């Protein structure tokens, strides 16, 4: 297909184009990864081994991105229901035969590697909902919306049962963003939000004790400063004491004296905030905003509805990661175990995330050819 493209003055084929890579997005992601490595070096106690391991993961992530960038959205559309179905089966398998880690049954042990099927669902969900909605007219009709809601709730329910509330919310958000971008009526959106608010007490009732604790701690962390409130209090102290310009790289006392919990994973932003201050944070936020804007721009460039919906929802899911993590670390949201994309130390989520960016790049690469063909 690629070779059928007409040669023109513009067709100055760069390597990036050849590899289906979107240069601005790639630069944004590399900058984020670079910032992540710098902060990680400090947060990990200046241990080069940690940075090296993260570099390997980043390489894997960017590799996954490169691979997914080559897959035409067309194939992703066709594969969507199968991927979704397999994801649901895997989630069922976890509930039956999964490994238990940290009090939750989230892991599936395949002998060579352990992985969380919920991660697959983060991709499968937007793929499947986009597939369902793009098949019909947009804005979607009620019947299709109900079908979409059903497809959305099954995996979410299974993930909640693990229990992994954080991932369940992210997966649900990924699906919901497709509905939003597909043009679901604002009336329905308003009604759903109202219904959610009404159901909140019921949800509260269904939450496990530790989940309730987290919410309560979020509301009043000082009630148990050495217990459940410790994380958030120490995180706020780290951020607040950083001030405008920060204490300087490698000089964060909260970070280096072990006061920040999970400081190289979920709470890594607190380390950055302490050492680089408000100025450093604003730069990071702008970088994230750029990636999100570029992602939405790419989505908008797509010629197919499926490409638009998938690229758009993946971008917004990425943003939700960022926002939930920042909100948690700065005390705006309850503590939910969500890593900060591209900055936090960690493997599985990084690969999924980069695969999503690969899809975005594929959408970008294929949109223009579709136009011309």
């Amino acid at each position, binding site marked *: 297909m690629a070779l059928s493209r007409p040669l023109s003055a513009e067709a100055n084929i760069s390597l990036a184009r050849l590899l289906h890579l979107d240069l601005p997005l790639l630069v944004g992601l590399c900058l984020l990864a670079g910032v992540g490595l710098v902060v990680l070096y400090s947060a990990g106690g200046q241990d080069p081994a940690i940075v090296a391991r993260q570099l390997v993961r980043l390489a894997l992530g960017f590799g996954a991105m490169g691979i997914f960038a080559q897959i035409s959205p067309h194939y992703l559309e*066709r594969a969507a*229901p199968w991927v979704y179905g397999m994801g649901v089966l895997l989630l069922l398998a976890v509930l039956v035969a999964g490994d238990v880690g940290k009090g939750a049954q989230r892991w599936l042990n395949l002998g060579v590697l352990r992985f969380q099927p919920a991660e697959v669902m983060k991709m499968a969900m937007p793929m499947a909902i986009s597939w369902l909605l793009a098949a019909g*007219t947009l804005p979607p009709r009620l019947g299709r919306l109900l079908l979409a809601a059903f497809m959305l709730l099954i995996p979410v329910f299974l993930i909640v049962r693990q229990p992994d509330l954080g991932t369940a919310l992210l997966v649900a958000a990924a699906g919901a963003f497709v509905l*939003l971008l597909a043009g679901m009526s604002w009336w329905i959106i308003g009604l759903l939000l109202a219904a959610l608010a009404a159901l909140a007490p019921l949800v509260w009732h269904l939450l496990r004790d530790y989940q309730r604790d987290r919410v309560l701690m979020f509301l009043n962390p000082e009630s148990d400063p050495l217990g459940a409130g410790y994380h958030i209090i*120490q995180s706020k102290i780290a951020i607040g004491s950083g001030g405008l310009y920060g204490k300087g790289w490698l000089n964060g006392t*909260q970070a280096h004296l072990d*006061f920040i919990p999970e400081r190289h994973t979920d709470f890594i932003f607190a380390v950055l*905030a302490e050492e680089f201050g408000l100025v450093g944070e604003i730069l990071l936020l702008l970088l994230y905003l750029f990636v999100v804007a570029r992602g939405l721009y790419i989505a908008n460039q797509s*010629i197919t509805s499926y490409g638009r919906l998938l690229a758009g929802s993946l971008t917004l899911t990425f943003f939700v990661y960022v926002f939930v993590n920042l909100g948690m670390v700065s005390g705006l949201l309850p503590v939910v175990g969500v890593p900060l994309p591209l900055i936090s130390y960690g493997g599985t989520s990084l690969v999924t995330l980069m695969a999503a960016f690969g899809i975005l790049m594929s959408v970008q690469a294929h949109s223009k050819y579709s136009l011309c063909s």
Partner: protein
Amino acid sequence: MAGLRLTSVLKDPLREARIFQDRAVVALMGAMVLLALVGLRLFYLQVISHEHFQTLSRDNRVKIAPIPPTRGLIYDRNGVPLAENLPTFSLEIVPDQVANLPATLDELAKIVDINSVDRKRFLRQVKQRRRFEAVPLRFHLTEEEVARFAVQRPRFPGVDIEARLTRHYPLGELTSHTVGYVARISEWELRHLDSASYAGSSHVGKVGVEHFYEEQLHGKVGYEQVEINAQGRSLRVLSRTPPVSGTDLYLYLDIRLQAAAEAALGDNTGAVVALDTKNGGLLALVSKPGYDPNPFVNGIDGKSYRALQNDASRPLLNRALRGQYPPGSTIKPFVTLAGVEHGLVSGNKGVYCPGFYRISGEEHKYRCWKHGGHGAVDLNRAIIESCDVFYYSLAADLGIDRLDDYMGRFGFGSKTGVDISGELGGLMPSREWKRVTRNQIWYPGETIITGIGQGFMSATPLQLAFATATLANRGLPIQPHILYASAEPHSRVLRVYQPKVQEPVPMHKVGYWDRIIQAMADVVHSSSGTAKRISPGLTYRMAGKTGTSQVFGLGQDEKYVKEHIPKNLWDHALFIAFAPVEDPRIAVAVIAEHAGSGGAMAAPIARQVVDAYLLGEKE
């Protein structure tokens, strides 16, 4: 285009693209709003509340740790250490960092020897101190125990070995009643001591010089700002205000003389006090039996303490300062001076002693110690032979008011104010005293026996020595003092104590000082003196006065026969002395409880002490 179609309705690509674009713009704006929200939150935390969090962050990582000052040392006049600080290893626990204290103690007991006494004391202190302060569990760890614990240390977070200085009294029993001792701060003291200056200190002076000079010896506490991590372990010192060590004290005490005095007392229960007549310096202060102060430093165990407390010879009682004895005949020189001052005694005036004294119109006989009587007695013989009748008569003539007043000038009935804690003041009875304490009137007979230092009157050995020194100085009292000088740590400069001279004893017939002193010299040197048995071999002249004070009263016609009476009712043997007569340098008071006669039992002790002082130096 291929694709799984679930509907046959025609799609409108342009409309769908427009819908998406609208929604994408809304989403992007939403994202920007949310990021702005995060930005505002960060602005609030980092700019508006920055100072608050900066303080919290600082409090997190910086711990103020008190550094206890090194306690001042105590030396005798020649620089012999009497109280020193020895480095010892102790096992300390920060309760805050230990999850299960009883279990940890059980585990520790498998490594080092921890008895129930250690355990009880530790748990008591844990309640008294703040949770994050280290509390010692065991002192004086052996090197083997230190090594055993060091290997296991990772198993015991919050438990550590500390090298500390522990107070030690190298001479033990010899100085227990002067230097005293320090011990752990009690709950009561914890409430009354300045908590800031005692932060980090675990010991405080309890008795003796250690207690009296607590403020100087303790020093000033220092502080260290330490950076700690989240687990509370100290990482590095940020700043340090060093503690100021306590002042070193040099005492008048001459430890050789102290040892000689203790040896001289032998197995007697009693006390010896020796004063430098020139400056009131306390040369020796012995109370026997003594006790070893060292076990008290880190908390004596209950059994040993009860044994000391229940000991019939009462080793914990400081007899020199707190033993209140009837002074007996030792006060006769002072009573004589009272008579001289009031014109009742003069060189040629005598009293006839038939062996007893009787108040006119009464039947009761006040007996002289000499059964047949002394016959005609003047003031010289009265002192030399210690005639009781002379003093019965003199006391009756003086009356209790004048006697009480004049004796008071020599310090009887009031504390000397010596700089050792715990002194008692003895008793010089008066009409007023009897009315206030017993609500009774004063009887003339009580004046009679007060004249020979019996009855209500009591005095401590220190008071007797003080009065003797005053007499030796011809009426010039110099307050007894044990501190000779103090020196700031690591400084050779001594701040020498200035002796306090008190108001002179009135005596308008100045020549009588010499007469009385001459008579006292004859107590030792004349063939009829009551202490004549110590004169052989004396190379200097000594003035003294014997005393044999009754512990119980004899019936009117009973005779005191030592052999027929249980030992605990034997008379107390007393002797006061100073020497050389021509230029007195030392004044001594000796009491040997239930030893018998003063001349036979107490005087030889006094001579040994004076010999050691006057002759020992020349060696």
